[in-house]
């Protein structure tokens, strides 16, 4: 008997079977590989945090050792600036907070405490929206809670050669030594349109042709750092 591949019953059954097979296949591959890819993601996050402290281009095998060498604790602080969790384990408390959950209403903000050449630094994770998708970054701050020690930015789908350049070291290097706040105590660290820097103490030069991604970074900085301001002020006392 030859099947009539144009009949309604056949079409519906065929579609159902294909969907079930594909769903099963995807679920199977995803579960089978979950542990491995989670470990990769964790390793990559550690790499990014270390990059904001100026420790770049670390080989995959050395990430854990470098992490243990520089990172002292992963604190959790609240929006009033109080330390909620000491994070002595280095990767169980603040490290476990998903960057998407860094919001005022969750009231739990991760802070990574590091020691670089004897000096204490604080790394603050930030998250925001670029032109096409999520962007995120880590700002390392000196012990005074005012001066930027280093920065790292990454993105999911910004335009290659333009917005994607926020990932490049030359852009991130601009942030080193900038002040987070201006004289009035507001968050002033920002990215401006390429070639429009008025105040070099807080403004970083944007990337030519990537104004919208630059605006995203600027919004991420002002919103994200505002959450951390109470904590940064306490550091300063």
């Amino acid at each position, binding site marked *: 008997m030859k099947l009539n*591949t144009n009949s309604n019953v056949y079409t519906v059954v065929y*579609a159902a079977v294909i969907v079930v097979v594909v769903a099963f*296949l995807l679920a199977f591959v995803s579960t089978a590989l979950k542990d491995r890819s989670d470990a990769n993601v964790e390793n990559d996050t550690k790499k990014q945090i270390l990059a904001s402290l100026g420790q770049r281009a670390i080989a995959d095998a050395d990430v854990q050792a470098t992490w243990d060498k520089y990172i002292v604790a992963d604190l959790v602080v609240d929006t009033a600036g109080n330390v909620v969790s000491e994070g002595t384990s280095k990767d169980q408390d603040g490290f476990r907070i998903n960057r998407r959950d860094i919001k005022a209403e969750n009231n739990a903000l991760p802070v990574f405490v590091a020691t670089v050449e004897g000096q204490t630094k604080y790394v603050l994770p930030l998250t925001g929206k670029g032109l096409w998708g999520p962007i995120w970054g880590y700002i390392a701050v000196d012990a005074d809670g005012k001066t930027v020690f280093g920065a790292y930015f990454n993105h999911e789908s910004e335009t*290659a050669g333009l917005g994607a350049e926020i990932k490049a070291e030359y852009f991130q290097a601009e942030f080193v030594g900038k002040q987070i706040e201006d004289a009035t105590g507001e968050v002033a660290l920002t990215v401006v349109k390429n070639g429009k820097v008025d105040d070099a103490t807080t403004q970083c030069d944007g990337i030519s*042709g990537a104004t919208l991604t630059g605006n995203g970074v600027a919004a991420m900085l002002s919103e994200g750092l505002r959450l951390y301001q109470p904590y940064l002020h306490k550091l300063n006392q």
Partner: protein
Amino acid sequence: MAALFSKENRQAFTEPLSLNNPVLVQVLGICSALAVTAKLEPAIVMGLSVTVITAFSNVIVSLIRKTIPNRIRIIIQLVVVAALVTIVSMILKAFAYDVSVQLSVYIGLIITNCILMGRLEAFAMTNGPWQSFLDGIGSGLGYAWILVVVGAVRELLGNGTLLGFNIIPEACYNAGYVNNGMMTMPAMSMIILGCIIWVHRAYTTKNTK
């Protein structure tokens, strides 16, 4: 063995490289050619991934082509492509994380690439798996070399580099040479593509006459 590389099979592979090039002649996949060619490296990555995905989705669709109900064939093709791309990206995430991070930007562009759908519909639905595989590889490479040429021109003239290495000597900059910022804009990829099509048409029509 001889049958595997018969004249028709060889044609399935070589035609998309030039005479029936997916970008130049069929004018497919233009949008992604615009998006990823500001630098040479993403162009190469995108070209290779499309080649792999086109080849394997061609094979899968060709294997099940006789069972696919005619009325929902496009949906079935899309499911095959999307599932394949997702599985490949999950495998890369577990075993080659750096590559997967680079590719993540292009995953969406690969699934919606018109070359994939075009080849599945026009070739894999009516031909056997081995021929479809060759056609997929050929179409992918035909697409890839255009991307690489456009990417190389744009990176060289726009940034003075190739794959991130400085190509234009410092002396030229000192003598007053300036990188052409226009080249990093998406519009320039259309103009370069237009020039390539022009040269290609002029060459192939002269040869066929």
